[in-house]
């Protein structure tokens, strides 16, 4: 059964990708990119990659189509140019593809348990993580303790992206005095506002559940941050941008983004203070397993805060841009 599901999902993915490459209507391409995100997330689900499906759903099907749409709202939908340099593209793609296909011939078969990938480093994670770190979700224990430095890099990448978007779009002097008046920022009609009022509190509650449930089931700091931001994005979509600006002012969110990274960094430094290496939590509490628990919860919190605030910064800057986008004549 898994095989049928896997092959069906992959073929759907392929069809969507080829159509996106072929279509000229940008709006259709963005919509299909959303479907592409949904399909790849369900593929990850059928592969047993639960945390990854969670993240891909929140990001691939949630945030990136929304961002692309607000870019599209300013840049117009027509894709005028027919593909130029097609020959060069086909050539490079052909060469890369050929190299890859020859490489697959000697790959270990898909799913074979004795492939080298499963024999060297991975068995220890599965066997000893319960004893050493004491949480059932092995992915979170590898993510937050064995390879915690990678996750610190991940949080800093998100922080850099938030800063980059801020430096490009956010800091223009005239943001303050110009009122946000585009329909994208106006409250929408009655039904949506009622349903919005009903849904937003459970969404934020669910985000907190995902944040602290990260050790026992799928979830964790990053997914929780995205869902938390999606709650506020829904609020801004339904009740308009001014309403959100009143609750979440820009300076606070920027500071929170920096605070999240600092939390992560200082928890690592505590490892040094407690006489061990950087990012070693066993010294944080009485015995080492309790210390690992405490460390993982702290850094997941740091990740959640940074991701939520960066996603909010990016979305609010984009929709404020939309308001200003109206001033620029549409040359779509």
């Amino acid at each position: 059964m898994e095989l049928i599901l896997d092959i069906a999902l992959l073929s759907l993915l392929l069809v969507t990708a080829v159509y996106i490459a072929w279509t000229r209507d940008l709006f259709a391409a963005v919509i299909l990119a959303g479907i592409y995100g949904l399909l790849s997330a369900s593929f990850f689900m059928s592969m047993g990659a639960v945390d990854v499906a969670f993240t891909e759903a929140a990001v691939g099907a949630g945030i990136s189509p929304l961002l692309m749409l607000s870019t599209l709202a300013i840049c117009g939908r027509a894709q005028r140019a027919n593909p130029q340099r097609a020959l060069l593209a086909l050539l490079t793609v052909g060469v890369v593809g050929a190299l890859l296909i020859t490489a697959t011939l000697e790959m270990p078969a898909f799913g074979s348990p004795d492939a080298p990938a499963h024999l060297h480093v991975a068995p220890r994670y599965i066997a000893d993580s319960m004893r050493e770190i004491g949480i059932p979700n092995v992915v979170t224990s590898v993510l937050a303790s064995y390879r915690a430095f990678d996750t610190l890099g991940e949080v800093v990448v998100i922080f850099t992206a938030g800063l980059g978007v801020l430096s490009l779009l956010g800091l223009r002097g005239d943001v303050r005095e110009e009122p946000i008046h585009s329909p994208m920022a106006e409250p929408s009609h009655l039904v949506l506002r009622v349903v919005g009022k009903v849904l937003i509190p459970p969404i934020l509650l669910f985000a907190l559940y995902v944040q602290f449930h990260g050790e026992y089931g799928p979830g964790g700091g990053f997914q929780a941050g995205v869902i938390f931001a999606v709650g506020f994005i829904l609020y801004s979509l339904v009740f308009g941008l001014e309403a959100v600006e009143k609750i979440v002012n820009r300076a606070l969110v920027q500071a929170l983004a920096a605070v999240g990274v600092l939390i992560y960094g200082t928890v690592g430094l505590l490892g040094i203070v407690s006489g061990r290496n950087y990012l070693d939590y066993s010294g944080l509490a009485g015995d080492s397993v309790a210390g690992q628990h405490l460390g993982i919860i702290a850094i997941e919190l740091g990740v959640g805060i940074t991701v939520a605030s960066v996603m909010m910064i990016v979305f609010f800057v984009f929709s404020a841009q939309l308001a200003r986008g109206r001033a620029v004549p549409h040359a779509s």
Partner: protein
Amino acid sequence: MIIATAIALLVVMVLALVRALLGPTIHDRILAVNVFGTKTVLLISVICFISGRPEFLDIALVYALINFVSIIGVLKYFEYQGRDEREGMQ
């Protein structure tokens, strides 16, 4: 019986995808995405039960939430675009 439902879900997803690809007007595509989204929610729940690990249903819930928000985002964009084209025509 669950496997039959999973196959039915796959068939529906294929049909919805065909509508998304063909869809003459943009709203057909949005409708197809909406159908596709709810079907993915169901597919994930069914996969959880097939693989015997029902505690992964949170993902199906996130799907439903994300699908709803992206549909509202798309429509909000479209309302904005629609009005703009009309003003553009004036």
